[in-house]
Each structure stands twice: as C-alpha cells, then as structure tokens.
C-alpha cells in the first residue's frame, strides 16, 4: 500500500494524543501545494452574511467566486429569497486594466432598482484588492443616492484565512447595528448570534428561547432581515454560537452598547441544555425563566430518548473521524457522538486556535489524532490507520470517506438537515445510524482495516 508521508512543514499541525508532548502549531496560512480543505477570506464573509435574505449580495470580481457560491448554503428564509441569487460584476479584461469602479457602480444601481433590497453587501474579491478599486467610496455614493446601507466587505481571498472573512463580515454588519429604533424591546431579550438557520435551525432555537419567556430581537444572521439587525442593540444579552464566526460582532456590540455576551453551542443534548441554562442564569432575577428552561429540557429529552437509545445500542463502539470548519463544532460533535456510544479517533478543524486545540486535547481519548488545516492525504491516512466507521465533515471530505468505504455525515453549511437542538440531535443520530449501519459497506473492498 502506498505510504502517505506528512509534509515536514505540517508535522507540527498534527498531534497524537498520548504519544507526544502537546506543542501544536495552528492559525497559519495553508502551505502551498498541500491541497488544503480551506477556502478563502471571501468564503468566510459569504458564509456569515449569506442568510440576510432581504439584502443584495454583490460579488465584485471575475465570475468564478460568484458561480461557485451560488445558493450552496442551506440557510432558509421565511420571507424574501434574495440571498439565494448570485450577483457578480463579472469583471472582464478591460475592467482589470481600467478598473472596475464604473461597472460596480452601474451594477449596484441597476440591481438595487430592480430588487429593492433593504441593504447591499459588496464583496471585494482577490482581483479587486489587486487592481485597487475604491470600493468604499462607490458604496458610499450608492448608499447616499439610494438611501439604503451599502456596505463594502473587504474579503479579498489572499489577505488571510476564512477567519479574516468572518471579521470583515462582522465589521460590515456592525455598520447596520444601532441604526434602528429600540422602542418596545423587552428587558428580557436576547440576540441569537452565529446561528445561520441551516435547514431551519434558528427557528428551533428561537422557539426554545421564546418558550422560556425571552424576546428574540434578532438572529445573526439566520433568516436575517436588515430591520431586525438595525435594532439589535436593544437586546439585553448576546448569545453567541460557535467560537469562530461572530464573536467579533458580539465584542463590538459589547464595546459600543455595553451588551454582555455568552458563548453556547446548540449541538447535542448536553450543549443544548447547557445553552438554555446559561441564558436563564443570566436572567437570574426572573426565576421563572430557569423553571421554564428546565421544563423544556425535560420534555424535549423525554421525547427523543426512546429512539435515541435504539441508535445508541446499534452504534456503540463504532469509531468516528470529525473534520469541520470551526473547532467549537468539533467539541460539540465529540460530545454528541459519545452520547450515541461512539468514539472519536480523529478530530480537527480548518480554523482552530491554540486554546481550541488545548481543549480538544483534554476532551479526546488517548490515541486520537488532532489535526489543523488538514488535506485529503492526511485525512485518509488517519481514517485508515484508526479504522474509522464514520466521517463527519463537509462536501469536500465526502468522497474521501466514500472511496475508503466509510460512512459520512455532512456537518457543513451546505447540508439540508437540521442538527441543532433536541430534534436536531435525533436527526443527527438517525443520520449517523443510517450511514454506519447501511448494508452497502459490506461491498467495500477495503473493509479489512475496520
């Protein structure tokens, strides 16, 4: 069998728990030629802002960046669907030479006239950063002329990693926050941040909080609306999901408006329940909120427990590999997988930081491999060596798993299945079960390594 060697420059981005001292490197630009699974700054911005459904999203650059991101996210809207369109200035050679400002201006004005959005985001891609278009002043001018916020998103792909894209998106959004009236907002109110309403997840979460007696002022950016974002600074608490993508916005809102924030996760029974309790604790002067949270947790768990038990029985002792974008998601996945009896043999992320990996090390069992910014060869190598039965990742990881005869679950922004909350946990378990237990793996020629 072909041996898979690890590139020397990447050795420190891989850690074998129990076999070596922890000295992991992370938060580096991907190594040229290593076939990273990561995308770019633009990708980070697009992911975060995508669900704002009544805004125009115009990608300023040649066509590729827009083509490849046309409607690939599973973020649902209860109303307008403008976010599912893919607009691009589609720069041509002469625009590259003479600059794309005119084209940007013309495109923006026409699109705004045609679709009447409540705001517009203009994503500057690599080439725009290079040719030096003054995107800010075009946006400002159109904003003045059309009377809606027109926000530049500085997401030139080469200027960093996906994380920098999150930041650029937060900066753009921070311009809208605080521009609306906060009249009538209850003191018992929150914003849900870092939740993108993949397959309707934000609706599930919002429902829990409302059942606790809280007002949800805005969801960022799931099922997003400009008007809600404008008045979101009227909320008493920001509840931030996922370490990577939107903590920065919560920090800005904390500085500007004094709104405190807490971090939560909505994946798995354990984290979901903790999220509700943590939020309830924040409103400790209103004990009824905690009471209601406890009732929700009890009821919901009772509902899913019988079916969950059945899956757990079937899945006990099976091994999983987890490689997703954000490290926070990995933590939740590990807990969720354990709750259905599975062990995690490979854990990694595209964007984890040192603290994330430290925590990950603590959570993992001996023998687990932890990887930062991995590539297909490394992922395959450890799946084979560790005998994984299941891979949790995004579309790019799917064929790696399938070629090796391993089950796969999509846990990326592209999925169409809600995995958040209690009902999501059941969906997750059901999906893991239907993949791992499918009889088709019996035909896989390489199954000798499991």
């Amino acid at each position, binding site marked *: 069998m*072909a041996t898979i060697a690890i590139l020397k420059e990447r050795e420190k981005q891989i850690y074998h728990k129990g076999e070596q001292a922890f000295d992991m490197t992370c938060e580096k630009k991907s190594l040229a030629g290593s076939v990273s699974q990561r995308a*770019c700054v633009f990708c980070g911005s697009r992911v975060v802002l995508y669900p704002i459904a009544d805004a125009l999203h115009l990608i300023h650059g040649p066509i*590729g960046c827009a083509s490849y991101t046309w409607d*690939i996210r599973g973020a649902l809207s209860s109303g307008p669907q403008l976010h599912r369109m893919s607009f691009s200035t589609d720069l041509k*050679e002469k625009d590259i030479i003479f600059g794309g400002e005119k084209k940007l201006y013309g495109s923006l004005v026409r699109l705004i006239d045609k679709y009447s959005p409540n705001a517009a985001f203009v994503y500057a891609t690599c080439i725009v950063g290079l040719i030096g278009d003054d995107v800010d002043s075009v946006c400002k001018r159109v904003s003045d002329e059309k009377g809606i916020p027109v926000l530049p998103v500085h997401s030139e*792909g080469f200027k960093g990693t996906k994380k920098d894209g999150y930041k650029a998106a937060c900066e753009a959004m921070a311009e809208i926050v605080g521009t609306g009236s906060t009249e009538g907002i209850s003191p018992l109110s929150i914003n849900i941040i870092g939740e993108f309403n993949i397959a309707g997840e934000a609706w599930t979460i919002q429902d829990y909080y409302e059942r606790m007696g809280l007002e949800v002022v805005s969801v960022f950016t799931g099922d997003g609306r400009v008007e809600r974002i404008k008045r979101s600074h009227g909320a008493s608490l920001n509840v931030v999901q996922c370490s990577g993508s939107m903590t920065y916005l919560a920090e800005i809102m904390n500085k500007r408006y004094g709104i405190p924030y807490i971090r939560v996760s909505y994946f798995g029974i354990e984290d979901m329940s903790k999220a509700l309790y943590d939020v309830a604790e924040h409103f400790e002067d209103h004990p009824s909120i905690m009471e209601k949270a406890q009732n929700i947790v009890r009821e919901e768990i009772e509902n899913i427990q019988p079916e969950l038990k059945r899956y757990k029985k079937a899945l006990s002792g099976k091994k999983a590999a987890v490689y997703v974008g954000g490290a926070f998601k990995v933590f939740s996945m590990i807990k969720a997988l354990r709750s259905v009896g599975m062990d995690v043999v490979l854990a990694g992320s595209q964007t984890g930081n040192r603290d994330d990996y430290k925590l990950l090390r603590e959570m993992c069992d001996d023998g687990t491999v932890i990887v930062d910014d991995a590539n297909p060869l490394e992922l395959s190598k450890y799946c084979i060596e560790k005998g994984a039965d299941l891979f949790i990742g995004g*579309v790019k990881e799917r*064929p790696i798993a*399938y070629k090796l005869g391993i089950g796969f679950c999509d846990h990326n922004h592209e999925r169409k299945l809600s995995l958040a909350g209690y009902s999501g946990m059941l969906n997750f378990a059901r999906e893991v079960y239907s993949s791992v237990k499918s009889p088709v793996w019996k035909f896989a020629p390489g199954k000798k390594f499991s």
Partner: protein
Amino acid sequence: MKALENVEYKATSNACKLCSPLGASLVFRGIEKSVPLLHGSQGCSTYIRRYLISHFNEPVDIASSNFTEETAVFGGSANLILAVQNIIKQYDPKFIGVATTCLSETIGDDVPMILSDYHKKNSGTKSPLIVSVSTPSYSGTHIDGFHGAVKAAVNSISAKEDLEAKHINLFPGMLSPADYRHIKEIFKDFGADHVMLPDYSQTLDGPLWSEYQKIPEGGTSIKQIISMGSAVASIEFGRILAEDESAGKLLQNRFKVPCHSLGLPIGVNETDVFFDAISKITGKPVPEKYIGERGRLIDSYVDGHKYVFEARAVVYGEEDLVVGLASFLSEIGVIPVLCATGGKSGHLKNKLCQVVEDFESRGIVTLEGVDFVDIGDAAKKLSPDFLIGNSKGYKTARELNRPLIRVGFPIHDRMGGARILHIGYKGAQQLFDTISNTIIASRQDASPVGYTYM
C-alpha cells in the same frame, strides 16, 4: 467620482458559466498520474474542488500555490516552486498541470519562465513533467480553460516519433465519463487504435479503493500524448471549437496530422458524421453492432415521434453542447425555441443554422453571454414544454413550472451526473427515451383520466 456616470453596466445574475481554471483542472485530472495545481489564492482551488466533487462524487485533489498578501505584491514564483515541491513529496506524480488564475495573471507572473528555471536547476533529478496553461477567467469561461489545457499539453509534449503509428487522436471536449467510455468502446469495436485527450473516465468515475490511491488510476498517459504527433489523423468534437486554434489544428500545422473537426456526436445526424469519419480514416466499415444500435434508435424515433413533435425546448449550457443538443432535438421534431449560453464566441447562431433545419423561419432565439435571469426572461415569452441543460437551470425551470432534463455539467441535484451518456446512437437513445417520457409524464399528470396505455 465623476467618471461613474455611465450606468450601462449590468451585473451577471446566476451565471451560466464557470471560470477557466475549472476546465483546465478537469483536463489535468484526465492525464495519467497527474495533479492539477492552480497558481493563485487558496479559495479558487477549494471552490473548484468543491464544485467538481459535487458533480463527480469522487476525490478531486487540486493544489494551490496559495498566494498571500506578499505574494500578490512581490510575485508568486517562490510559492509556485514550493507548491510543486510539496506536490512531488506528497503525491509523487508523473505530471503536474499548472493553470493560472485571475490573480497570477494580473500580477503578471511568467509561469513558463518560472517553471523552466525550476527545471534547469533541477535537471538530473527525477522530476515530473510540468505543463502550464494561461487561464485568466476574466477573458473566457471554463470551456476556454478546458480547450486551452488540452492544447497546452499537446503543444508542449507531442512529437512526431513513430512513423509506423496507425492511431487516431481524439479530442472529445468536455463530456461525461460515460461518454468517454463509449468513445473508447466505439474505437475498440472498429478495431482502430486511438489516443484520447483528456480521459477522466476512470479518474473521475472509479470504483471504491481496496487500498489508498494518492492519484486515482487511469487517464491519458504521457507516452500517448507524445505519440499524438505521429497519428494518422485527429478528430475533434465541437463546431464552435472548429473556429479555434485548437490542439487538433496545432498537430495539423506542426506535424501534418490531418484534423477532422466534427460536431459533438449527439443524435443520428452528428453521430453518422463521426462514424463516417472513423470509417474513412481507417478504411473499415461501421461495425454491425452500431448498425443495429442505429436501427433500433430510428425505430424508437418512429414509435415516439408523435409525443415529441413540435415540443418546445429551452436549451442552455456550453456552446458546443447547445449546438449538439439542438441538432438532435431538431432531428426528432422538437423545436429548440431558445438556445442560450454564458459563453461568447460569436459563432453560436451561425453554427446552429448549420444543424437546425429552417433555423431562420422558426424564429429560434439565440442568446450568447447571458445568465439565468436573462434565460428565464426570454423563456417566459416562448412557452417551452421543457428545459434541457445542467442543474443550474433548476431554479428557472421551477419558476416556469416546466420539467428540466438534466444533461451536461454540473449535475449536482441528482445522482449519476458522471454516468449520463450524451453521445453516439446509444446516447441519443437514452436522451430520446428521457425526453419522450418526460413529455408523456407531464401529459399523464395533467390528464383527468390518467391513461395507463399509450
């Protein structure tokens, strides 16, 4: 900001095209033991990988030279060399195909020079063959990248060596793995040797692995590409491509290999032309098997002609595919009322006139350089019965409330995109059955009676 007054510019909304390095990557995936490398930022290669994976459902490893801010300012040669070295260390390839991106083109990296320097410094070491192609997306679509990469490979390695060689070169264009397999089958049945470039029939549609493969098996070998200069003839598919300085023409000019430019062999007419060409070049008759296939196909045309006659179709996609489909549709009596593409060769209408009877008098609308909003707007006025093209037309089809017949690339909302057969009598048979059945199904669904016999 006075200069901004000109408001004629229009954005592209829901593009009916992709960018050039995607096409080039696909070609490089169809060469044996090859790894594609995009010279630019990480995002381009990751997005292109993601896109190809959702169609082919196969691992698609495409490396990136991974520009940083400094690279964008000071040039990408160091990154390119590092990427090449890392690919060699990890993949041990025989071939690396480098395609530029908008970014490296704009900063003006001289990729051929960087690579030749690298070769000079590393002469003597066992390094893979490296071929580069210039694919700035702002001046072309994925199809330009595709043909560009084929030509670059031929240009840099084909030679006239073997004077005894009897094989035919085939440049099939961007077809499905199933199409590629069918082409190989046809040549085999003719008893004719051939070299096809590219050939991702295995590398992008293979079985599960019993052990790990860094680079999937299959693809056109370097030896075969070298031998293309010695072939008895070349056949290339694509009436639009025929206008280009293609790989086939390059071999004709350089090595006097006669080039036959044919349409994509979709439907009886264009497939006949293909079989005739092989027959003529080899001096061998069309194998019985295909006479049988053709016979059965025409028999089915007759059986089903009433269902499809004067049905109205919206056809979209890559230009050559549009021409091929329009030719097929019009031979069965379907009117391709709208033929649309995101490409902009300037030849679409002219080529359609060659294959669609009474083109002018039927008032067929031809649109070049358009997006799906334009296509939807035009289609609305033409009351089509169905749409035929890739998955990207789904939204439009849904808005028009008409069925979409999925062909071409990408198919990412159905299983089996890689297994769609478009070409040959067999491909026409499958298309014909699908189209007739789609029409029959919509009539059946709309009927208050729900007849169960035809």
